[in-house]
């Protein structure tokens, strides 16, 4: 099958959908000729014109508000925030408008919009452009939250997000834009709320999100050499969460390590760990659940320190061994 990058997969999903659905349009800062901060929308203004690829002023609140309003009137906007850190400015529109309106209108109106935004560290962009703030959005009823880790997942999940009648926050990871995988040429949809077992194993389950999926897979490859069989589960969507797949995996392996890049304190890993503690899998746990997350500090500009601030492959290997009493 054809192999394309994560970035191309995101763009292709938008292009293919826009070709078949006139209600879909995109908006954001510098997404026109410049092609967006990371070049995701490059070439789109040439194909779809400035009516459907709308450059906006530098106002995340304005972008989000425009998207909410047009979604209410029947459009399907996809807005881009240059960095997910700036969701702080769009938050009022997302939390108090987008997430609420369908409920407050008793279902008579809905907000079918997608907020796409790159998150995460690793690019030397320092503290204000490197955060992983997805846990905030998972706390808000009315928002769906997606974190694809591969090009294949990105295309299929973005299509599902566009089709969804609810506001969806779609986190892309900066370090993943260049990663490649096999992606079908035709448009396809991956159901929201279905986790993916990225690697099967029997000794321990790692639940990882976004770039940590890849780091966990790398760790799993190393651990396999020592006879440790690691299962890597990628939830893909945080809200709704595919609890069943995770519970099943943990019940099988009896050990759980949760890995995400976001700061561990208050991170979504706590949600996954608690969910397991409350679940059928509890009785199968043969060690305390371990969470790996970012240190509770702003992401440093120094590239060495930046790496230290978030879990790396050796950290994951160590956590797995500790959990299995093999440290």
């Amino acid at each position, binding site marked *: 099958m054809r192999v394309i990058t994560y970035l191309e997969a995101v763009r292709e999903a938008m292009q293919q959908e826009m070709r078949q659905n006139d209600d879909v349009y995109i908006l954001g800062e510098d997404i026109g000729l410049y092609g967006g901060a990371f070049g995701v929308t490059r070439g789109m203004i040439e194909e779809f014109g400035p009516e459907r690829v709308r450059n906006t002023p530098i106002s995340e609140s304005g972008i989000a508000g425009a998207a909410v309003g047009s979604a209410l009137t029947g459009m399907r906007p996809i807005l881009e925030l240059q960095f997910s850190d700036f969701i702080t400015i769009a938050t009022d529109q997302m939390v108090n408008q987008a997430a609420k309106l369908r409920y407050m209108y008793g279902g008579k109106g809905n907000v079918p919009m997608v907020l796409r935004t790159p998150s995460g560290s690793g690019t030397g962009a320092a503290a204000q452009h490197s955060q992983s703030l997805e846990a905030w959005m998972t706390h808000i009823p009315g928002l769906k939250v997606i974190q694809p880790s591969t090009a294949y997942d990105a295309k299929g999940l973005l299509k599902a997000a566009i089709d969804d009648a609810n506001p969806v926050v779609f986190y892309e990871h900066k370090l993943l834009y260049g990663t490649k995988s096999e992606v079908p040429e035709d448009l396809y949809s991956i159901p929201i709320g279905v986790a993916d077992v990225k690697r099967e194993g029997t000794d321990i389950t790692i639940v990882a999100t976004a770039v940590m999926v890849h780091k966990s897979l790398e760790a799993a490859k190393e651990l396999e050499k020592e006879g440790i069989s690691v299962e890597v589960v990628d939830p893909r969507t945080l809200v709704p969460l595919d609890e069943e797949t995770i519970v099943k995996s943990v019940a099988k392996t009896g050990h759980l390590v949760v890995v995400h890049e976001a700061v561990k304190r208050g991170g979504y890993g706590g949600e996954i760990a608690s969910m397991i503690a409350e679940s059928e899998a509890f*009785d*199968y*746990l*043969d*060690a305390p659940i371990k969470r790996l997350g970012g240190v509770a500090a702003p992401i440093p500009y120094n590239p060495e320190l930046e790496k230290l601030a978030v879990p790396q492959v050796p950290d994951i290997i160590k956590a797995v061994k500790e959990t299995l*009493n093999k440290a």
Partner: protein
Amino acid sequence: MAKEIFMPKLSSTMEVGTLLQWLKEEGDPVQVGDPLFEIMTDKINIEVESYEEGVLLKKYYEVDDEVPINTIIGYIGEAGETVPDEPPASEGEEVQEEVDSPKAEKTTMEQEQEELEEVEGQVGKVRATPAARRVARENDLSLETISGSGPKGRIHEQDVLDAVKENAVLITPLAEKMAKDHQLDVRKIEGTGIRGKIEKSDVERYLSSQKVREEEPAERVKLKGLRKAVADKMLESARSIPHVTLTTEVDMTKVIDIRKNLLPIVENETGYRLSFTEIIIKSTAHTLTKHRNINASLIDNEIVYNKAVNIGLAVAVDNGLIVPSIHDADKKGLAELTAVSKTLGKKARDSKLTPAEMTGSTFTISNLGMYAIDGFTPIINPPETAILGVGRITEKPVVVDGNITVRPMMVLSLSFDHRAIDGAPAAAFLTELKETLENPYSLFV
């Protein structure tokens, strides 16, 4: 969390209780209100009931132990919960020790160290993962017996699985089935097969040795129903009535003769065989008509001299004793008495007596003559004031007219209530009864 069972303080003067018996064994399920054990205090014996529901986890004291009040004598909790091996000191004692201890000052370091140890070695807590606990539960293993391989001795699933394997007994399928059928603990059976495998012959050997070695535990049956009624009545009688028992020996030669002659006649008329019992009933009733003071009842501080002579006949039934009443026995002939007593006996054994048939007796006869019993001291059937015990008829050498001769002799035992009857009238009655039986023709007078 396991709950303590305390020695209760049942009276203001009670300081210790003596354990009389445990009514539950370790491992038995316990409901709230179930009797747990019986104790004796300075005043009473009493069964102590459970306030908790769960499983009796631990018994710290044995029967006959004297246990101070408020001492922990056991624990109730969930199966598999761990409790201390030794009874923890009661709170009172601890306080005492602290006050007494001169080394009350401890360095902060020491205290911290102790606190740390306390947390780590929390009494009765085993460090084990949920999975280890699940596997232990599934295999009926106690986590206490398993050593943990994890940090701080944490027990992991594999530790439990290893213990299960270690505990596994090599046994042939046939031997296993036999052991199961006999509810044997296979771990107690010594195997003689390869690597100690238990075979059929091992189980058989174990079974036969068990038969010799182990006595079956005593069966315990709660006093209830008829047994309870009999027990209460006997206790009341024995405790409240001053019994005196007189005995005399009766020459039964003529009674035997009469019975032999009347047997076919009575059988022809009633279909029942005349027995000595009926002749004794007849003679007793007849004699009682002349000794009204013996045919008396003691009711509420009144001696009631009964007009009717109603003879109660003690009948042994399953698990008890019933006394149907033969009303107006003095007015009935031997044929009628035979029919009535046989019918009442059968009804008593079949539990079909009517209340009227079970009440109203004024004097009771208890006949153990069918056994090798010579004489006994019967207990009065209140509110009656006397009872006649009848022994067997046996041939004995007796002196008649200066010569030793063999005669069929029978002992009569008369117990009477000395509150209502004195020795002389009782003796007079028994003497006349003896004479009546020795000269039964007087019955026709």
